[in-house]
């Protein structure tokens, strides 16, 4: 490495920034898809876990246990290699799909499981009396959920949701391992072409550290703002 110049240089660090930043939206896109699909899936699973028929329960428990008990990287790899086979059996050709679609699906499935547990425990921690009181004054079950139970549950879920959100944001850094060109993938190609990857990785590290700290502050602020005690 000595032949190519010094190990770390600030000028390369500055040069790398405009080459990396255009790929940040790819990373943020993974977060956005995962959170939107994950919240939807998580809500459905949480409600099924609370109100669903008994025969759903073992399957849902198994699903949640698998998603929580295996590494995110392994889940991405299983979706990437497994989903095309499953879809082929259903007559859909998925081999040509963009790699990032598999990453969206893998993260959405994972988030669905994690968020369902957060939603379920926060819905269950709202006292039953709240639901009973809402029904007794003539609200329908849906109205009672929407106006009485969920606002209280969201308040309880917020801190765990924040932690989960930051973990998801960190998890997106794994997508480049199956060849997605997000900000990490771009850093890898930069490293391969210039023989200097350290500056790019350090910039990404800085980006993640600052973003995580800001997110944590944001959730802390929201938490304080929403507490009515």
């Amino acid at each position, binding site marked *: *490495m000595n032949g190519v110049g010094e*190990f770390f240089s600030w000028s390369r660090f500055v040069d790398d920034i405009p080459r990396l930043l255009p790929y940040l939206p790819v990373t943020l896109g993974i977060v956005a898809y995962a959170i939107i699909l994950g919240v939807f899936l998580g809500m459905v699973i949480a409600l099924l876990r609370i109100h669903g028929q008994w025969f759903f329960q073992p399957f849902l428990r198994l699903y949640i*246990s*698998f998603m*929580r*008990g*295996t*590494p*995110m*990287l*392994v*889940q991405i*790899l*299983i979706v990437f*290699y*497994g989903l095309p*086979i499953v879809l*082929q059996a259903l007559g859909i050709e998925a081999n040509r799909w963009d790699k990032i679609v598999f990453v969206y699906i893998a993260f959405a499935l994972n988030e669905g499981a994690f968020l369902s547990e957060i939603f379920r425990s926060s819905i269950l921690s709202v006292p039953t009396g709240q639901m009973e009181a809402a029904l007794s004054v003539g609200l329908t079950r849906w109205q009672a959920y929407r106006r009485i139970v969920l606002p209280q549950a969201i308040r309880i879920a917020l801190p765990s949701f924040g932690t989960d959100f930051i973990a998801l944001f*960190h*998890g997106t*850094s*794994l997508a480049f*391992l199956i060849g997605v060109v997000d900000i*990490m993938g771009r850093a890898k190609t930069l490293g391969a072409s210039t023989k200097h*990857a*350290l500056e790019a*990785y*350090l910039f*990404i*590290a800085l980006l*993640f*550290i*600052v*973003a*995580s*700290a800001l997110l944590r502050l944001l959730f802390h602020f929201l938490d304080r703002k929403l507490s009515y005690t």
Partner: protein
Amino acid sequence: MEFNAVYFWESLQSGLTYLPRTMELTGIPILCGFVFGILFAVVRVYKVSFFSPLIAVFVVIYQGLPTVVALLIFNLMFMANFNAVSSSLSLGITAAQIDNIWIGIVVLSLQAICNIEEAFRGAFYSVDNGQHAAALSVGLTEVQTLRRIILPQMLPVALPMVTNNIVGIIKNSSIVVAIGITEVLAGASIPASKTYSFLESYIAAALIYWVLTACVEYTFRRIELRGRKYRRQLA
């Protein structure tokens, strides 16, 4: 292409032979995490000057860093600087002679220390201040108070979080494949390099991790219930 049970079995066996490597990658960080995590939590709770803010800043920085980024940076630094450091200290070893699993162990250890420190610090604050004051008022020293009054009360609070941290470390240990360390995940995919049965390999790896984390969760759940039993007797 469909699921091949023979390849799956082959991958499972290959993955299991690398289980000791994963144990090494998780056991040492967990041990470091407990020793330094509790020590650092005490330092921060007692607001030891200089060290307390230093640890606080380090935890914020390191917890903001994704594992894979930390691994890649540490790996590059190690590759580029180890030989120079080694020769200046005349250790007589080169980077090539060192198993790169140690890079993974260092990265995961730092992560374990940060996470366990945060878990224990949170648990410290959950013990009522009056407990501390009462213990001192009956003549216990600060160390006795910590060991006999505070620690026994904070352990049940810290336990669920520590369980999550340990499961997290086991899961994160799979990321070390990014710098070419062979453990369960890489081990399970060795047969796939010949047969292209990647799906079977990754499902085999998932199964091993799943059993491992389920065992950890079951064990800690038992310890938690045991602790709760004593609590009820006191009440």
